[in-house]
């Protein structure tokens, strides 16, 4: 998440390092929780006629997770690109996943 945090700052203090690690952890949990709610909504019918996941639902969940992660990457790239353009030309590099 170097494009959001750090990026040329001086040596961080203990408290800052911990706060940063904490925030990254939260971001990953939040990303998963959003993936979970979106894919559950998109892939599970709401009549609940059976408690098991059937084949179609399982496949839908797998693909939904893959697409969510792919979208996360694309969005992150776009934001870095936009930020680089705003700074005056050179593109950001390195993907960022989970946020």
């Amino acid at each position, binding site marked *: *998440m170097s494009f959001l945090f750090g990026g040329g700052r001086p040596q961080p203090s203990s408290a800052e390092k911990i706060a940063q690690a904490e925030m990254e952890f939260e971001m990953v949990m939040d990303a998963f929780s959003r993936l979970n*709610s979106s894919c559950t909504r998109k892939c599970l019918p709401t009549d609940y006629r059976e408690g098991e996941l059937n084949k179609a639902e399982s496949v839908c969940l797998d693909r939904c997770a893959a697409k969510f992660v792919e979208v996360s990457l694309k969005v992150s790239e776009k934001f870095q690109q936009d930020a680089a353009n705003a700074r005056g030309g050179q593109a950001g590099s390195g993907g960022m996943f*989970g946020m």
Partner: protein
Amino acid sequence: MNMNFNDTEQRELNSRLERKQMREMLTTYQNLLQGCFDECINDFSTKSIQSREEGCLMRCLDKRQKASERLTARFQELNQQMADKGGAPGQ
């Protein structure tokens, strides 16, 4: 994130992350409960749960929990693949 933590920092960090994870678990639990309540309980002509509603509720909990476990596994795999490709951490 390539940070080095000394022992004191690591302990402090762990205890904070544990608390966050606990809180997250509880939120997940409440989301599950509210989601299944919203979808299965729609008859307010009585004040007790009907057997039809209870059936729906139990299947809803089972299915959503299985979905959540499946998605957790996928998320971790995908996260790992990213890390292997030298992409960003995400864990």
